[in-house]
C-alpha cells in the first residue's frame, strides 16, 4: 500500500466525516488553537515591533528575545508546562505563542525600520503626530513585510498545533498521535495531509488579505 492509498482510504471512510472525532470537528479545533495562539502572539509581537521599529530603540532587545524564543523546543515546552500546571489549553498555548512571536516581532521591527525616512521626515515636518506617522505613513508601507511575518508565524503554528493532541486535546494532531498509537497509518497519513492542506489554505488566506489591504502604490502594480 502506498501513501496515496492511505490518503484515499482515510478520506473515503465515511466514519471520518462525523462525530466528535470527525474531520470537520478536528479541523475546527485545529483552526481555533491556531487563531488563538496567533492572536495572542500578534497582540504581543505587533505593538512591540511597531514601537521599537518606529523609535529605533530596543532593536538589540528584540533580536535577543527572538533568538531566545526560537531556541526553545515547542514539544519540550509543552511537556514541561503540562507537568507543572497540568493538562489543559495553557500548556498548548504557551509553546505555540512562543513559537509565533519571533517571526512577527522581528519582521515587524525590520519592516518599520526599513521604511524610507524621507516621507517620515516630510510627515513630521508638516505637523503630523507621531502616532499618525506610525499608522498612516510607516505601517501602510511596511504592511507587506508585516503580513509576511504573520504568515510565517501562522504556517508554523498550523503545523505545530498538532502537539495539542499529546496533552489530550483535539485538533488534527489527534489523528497522527492516535494513528501512531494504534498503528493505523491510514490515519497518520490522513492527518498529515490535512495539516499540509491547512497550511496551504493559510498561505492563500494571507495572499488574499495582502491583495485587499496593501495599497496598489506599495504593491507597484
Amino acid at each position, binding site marked *: 500500500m502506498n501513501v496515496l492509498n492511505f490518503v484515499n482510504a482515510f478520506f473515503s471512510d465515511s466514519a471520518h466525516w462525523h462525530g466528535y472525532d470527525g474531520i470537520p470537528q478536528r479541523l475546527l479545533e485545529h483552526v481555533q488553537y491556531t487563531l488563538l495562539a496567533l492572536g495572542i502572539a500578534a497582540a504581543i509581537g505587533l505593538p512591540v515591533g511597531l514601537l521599537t521599529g518606529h523609535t529605533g530603540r530596543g532593536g538589540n532587545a528584540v533580536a535577543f528575545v527572538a533568538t531566545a524564543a526560537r531556541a526553545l523546543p515547542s514539544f519540550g515546552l509543552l511537556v514541561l508546562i503540562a507537568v507543572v500546571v497540568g493538562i489543559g489549553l495553557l500548556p498548548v498555548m504557551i509553546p505555540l505563542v512562543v513559537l509565533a512571536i519571533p517571526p512577527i516581532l522581528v519582521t515587524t521591527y525590520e519592516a518599520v525600520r526599513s521604511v524610507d525616512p524621507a516621507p517620515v521626515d*516630510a*510627515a513630521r515636518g*508638516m505637523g503630523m*503626530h507621531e502616532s499618525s506617522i506610525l499608522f498612516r505613513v510607516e505601517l501602510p508601507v511596511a504592511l507587506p513585510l508585516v503580513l509576511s511575518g504573520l504568515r510565517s508565524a501562522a504556517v508554523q503554528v498550523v503545523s505545530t498545533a498538532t502537539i495539542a493532541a499529546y496533552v489530550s486535546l483535539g485538533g488534527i494532531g489527534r489523528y497522527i498521535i492516535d494513528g501512531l498509537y494504534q498503528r493505523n497509518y491510514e490515519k497518520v497519513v490522513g492527518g498529515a495531509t490535512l495539516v499540509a492542506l491547512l497550511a496551504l489554505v493559510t498561505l492563500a488566506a494571507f495572499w488574499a488579505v495582502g491583495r485587499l489591504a496593501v495599497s496598489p502604490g506599495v504593491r507597484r502594480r
Partner: protein
Amino acid sequence: MDSVTKRYPDGTVAVDRLTLEIPDRSITVLVGPSGCGKTTTLRMINRMVEPTEGTITLDGADLQRQPVTALRRSMGYVIQNAGLFQHRTILDNIATVPRMIGWGKQKSRERARELMERVGLDASLAKRYPYQLSGGQQQRVGVARALAADPPVLLMDEPFSAVDPVVRKGLQDELLRIQDELGKTIVFVTHDIDEAIKLGTMVAVMRTGGRLAQYAPPAELLSDPADDFVEDFLGADRGIRRLSFFASEGLQLTTAPVVRVDATAEQLAAPDAPYLLVTDVEGRPLGWSEPRDLTAGDIAAERLLPYGRPFVPGTDSLRAALDCAVLSPTGWAVAVDGDGRVTGVASQQTIGEAIRTAHGAADGRTAGPGTDGDRPAGAAGIAKAAP
C-alpha cells in the same frame, strides 16, 4: 533669527550665532557648501531641530513658545526627493494637511485638484501613485502638498537637487511664477549658487562651521562679494552673471541697417553699414547679409547669414543681449518685440556702453559693502530679468 546657535552633544557646532532677518513675502535662499549648516538652519524654523542658543521669532512671536504641531502646520515643507507617501494617490498626498486640520474629504480633494493645476500637473495624474510619476512630477506634487493648506511660510530643503538640469530649470521657473501669484514667505536651501541667484530676493551665503558669510540681494552679491570665500563660491564668471540683473530696456537700438525683403535698390543702398538685417514683410528677422550681396527683388532667405537668437528688450537682461551679440556672426544683436518683429539692432560696442552705464548707476545706488542697517531691497531700480 537672533544669534541662533545649534551645538550637538558631541560638541559639533552646526550653526554658529546666526542672525538673519528674513523678509516677508519673498524668497530667501540659504546657500553654501555641504556641512555649512544651511539645512539645520531651515529645520530650526519648523523646530525639526531645536536651537541650543538664541531665539527665532516669526512676526514678533517666539517660535519656542508655540505648540510644535500647530507651528509646523502653518509652514509648508518641501524636501529633496519630495518624500511622497507611496501608498496614497497623488490627490490624497496633496490633500494630507487639509485632511489633518479637518477640512473634510470633499473640500480637501477639491483643493488638491486646484493645486495640481497650479503647479502644472495634469489632472489625469490625480489617481496615480507616486511610483508612476517622474522625479520632476513628484517634486511638483511635493510643492503642491506643501501649499495645500495655504500656509504663509514655505520651507524648501534642496527641493530641486535630485532632478536633471532641464527639469530643474522648469521647476525653478514654475516656483517663480507661483510665487508671483501667491507671495509666500519662502526659505529655500540649496548648494547651487546659480539656483540661489536665480530664485533669491535675498541670498544668505553660509560657510563651513555654520557662519554667515554674506547676506545680500543677488545683484549685490555678484557686484560686491564680502570676502574671498564668497567670491570663490560665486565662481569665475560673476561679472557676466551680474548682467542678468541689468535690464536691456535702455539699450540704444538702431534701425538703420534693417531692410525689408521687398526693399528697392535705393533702400538697399541707403544705409552706411557693413551688414544689413533682412526682415520679411511682417518685420520678422530673416538673416544678415553684406549690402553688395543683395539684389533688389531677388533676396533669398537661404543665402543670408543666420541671425542667432534675438532678445526682447524689457523682458531679457543685458546678459541675454550680450549673448545674442556674441553668438551673432556679425557681432550685432537683434532686438524683437513680443511678436517676434524686429525693433532694432545693437552692436557689441553699444551693449558694452550700456553695461558701463548700468554698472555706474548700480554702484551709485547701492551702499558699499560693510554698511549696516537696511539693505537696499533688490538694489532699488535694478530690474531683475531672466538671464
